[in-house]
């Protein structure tokens, strides 16, 4: 990969990676660090990465960094979730915000799979490469995630109507 191609990757994928991370960990500061680390690693291994695999490579690095951050902050995240679960139904009047809240409560694998699928349009194989899952596992995880979100939204409809 050339420097020009690297710069193209920054322009094309940095927003998507940042969005993916923010949606998963809900911490913009951590997400910025992860994006920075991701592109630093790409720059170091520039001679070994090809342009056509660059997107998967970048998301994989970002995903692994994100997992590390999640593991590090797991206790903190669990406490925060428990604190907000009681009042969450009354905080959202916008469906998308509510769905995002549902996504944030998904298990990490389901959340990663569904965000990669919907935000970046990755296919099952690509998601499997990034997350280290098989294609069938990816499909199952996405199905469970959608089912969870559907039930979550159903609760809101019951509350509103």
């Amino acid at each position, binding site marked *: 990969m*050339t*420097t*020009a191609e*690297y*710069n193209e990757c*920054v*322009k094309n994928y*940095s*927003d*998507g*990676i*940042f*969005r993916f991370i*923010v*949606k998963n960990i809900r911490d913009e500061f951590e997400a*910025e660090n992860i*994006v*920075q680390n991701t*592109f630093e690693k790409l*720059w*170091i291994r*520039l*001679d070994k990465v090809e342009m056509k695999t660059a997107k998967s490579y970048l998301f994989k690095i970002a995903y692994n960094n994100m997992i590390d951050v999640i593991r590090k902050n797991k206790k903190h995240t669990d406490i925060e979730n428990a604190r907000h679960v009681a009042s969450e139904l009354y905080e959202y009047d916008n*469906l*998308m915000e509510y*769905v*995002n809240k549902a*996504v944030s409560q998904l298990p990490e694998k389901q959340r990663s799979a*569904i*965000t990669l699928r*919907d*935000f970046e349009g990755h296919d099952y194989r690509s998601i499997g490469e990034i997350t280290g899952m098989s294609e069938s596992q990816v*499909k199952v995880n*996405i*199905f469970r*995630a*959608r*089912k969870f*979100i*559907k039930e979550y*939204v*159903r609760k809101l*409809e019951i509350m509103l109507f």
Partner: protein
Amino acid sequence: MKLNKHNYELVMFDLLEGNLSQSDELRVMKQIEEDEFFFKEWKLFKSTILVADSDIVYSNKSALLKKENAIVLIYKPWMAVAAGVTLLAMVFVLWPSAAPSELADMPTNKPEEATPLVSLPAIDDLTQNEEVTTLLTDNTPNMKEQEPNNVGAKSSDESSKIRLEQVVHDAPASAEQEAIITPESSKTLIAGRQEIDNARKAVDERQLDKHYNDEHKKEEETPASQQIAKGDDVKLNIEMTPIPEAKLLEENSRNEAIASTENQTSKEKISAFVTNSPLERITSITLAVAAKARHPKVRLKPNFKRDSRPSLDIEFESDGYQAIASLQPFKK
């Protein structure tokens, strides 16, 4: 494909994901529109599609961008190993050989203090600066017959003992002055070098003694008729280039001039004689004297030391008498 309450979630999921064929999609969509329950469920399913928030952007893109002519630093594990080895080698090479205390004892490079190595007088200079007294003994009366034109030799014939004082001029400084300037370390160094020189001399003497003993044995083995009687001419087997007659005449006239200058002190005479003489003069006189001596020993000692001028010391010894001449061909 027919929808029912057991499979509708899976079928709707496949429909949402685009996993169904076009015909299956149409068929499933028709069933969903016809059934209210399926329609509501399908609506909920559609709400699970996440939409990327376009407001969420990474703001530090410019910090990540690289200049296109930037040099790409490629890291390889062997580079770290090579760097480590190089550093170790540099540490070994550049590490000071002296201990810190030794370094502290070393003189500083102040202008008023000369460094020992520079000001250290050479051993050769010290020996040359010493007044060398040589005694040439000549008991043989045949010198005239051998070299009738050599007036300098005549004068040596007339006196049984000639005291030669050789003072080498143009020395950089006297030995005493040097000794005052140099620290104790230089003295120990001089002593060490003198010991080395003495050892070398001893080796030379041993070799010459051996050579002399071999020659003496040969003499004893020769018949009595062939042995040299006392007072007879002695012929040395020392190879030398023959001196042209014109040169000899010139040298003889110079020697006469030297001999005639009676007002000069002996030191001045010797200084003029030795310093201005070429190699042939010294060797010829030395050999002439040696030819008349008994059991002569001649030592030629070339000195090519770094801190002193190159010189050639000629030592002659016979029956306990010794003559030393030092020649410095490159001295003005």
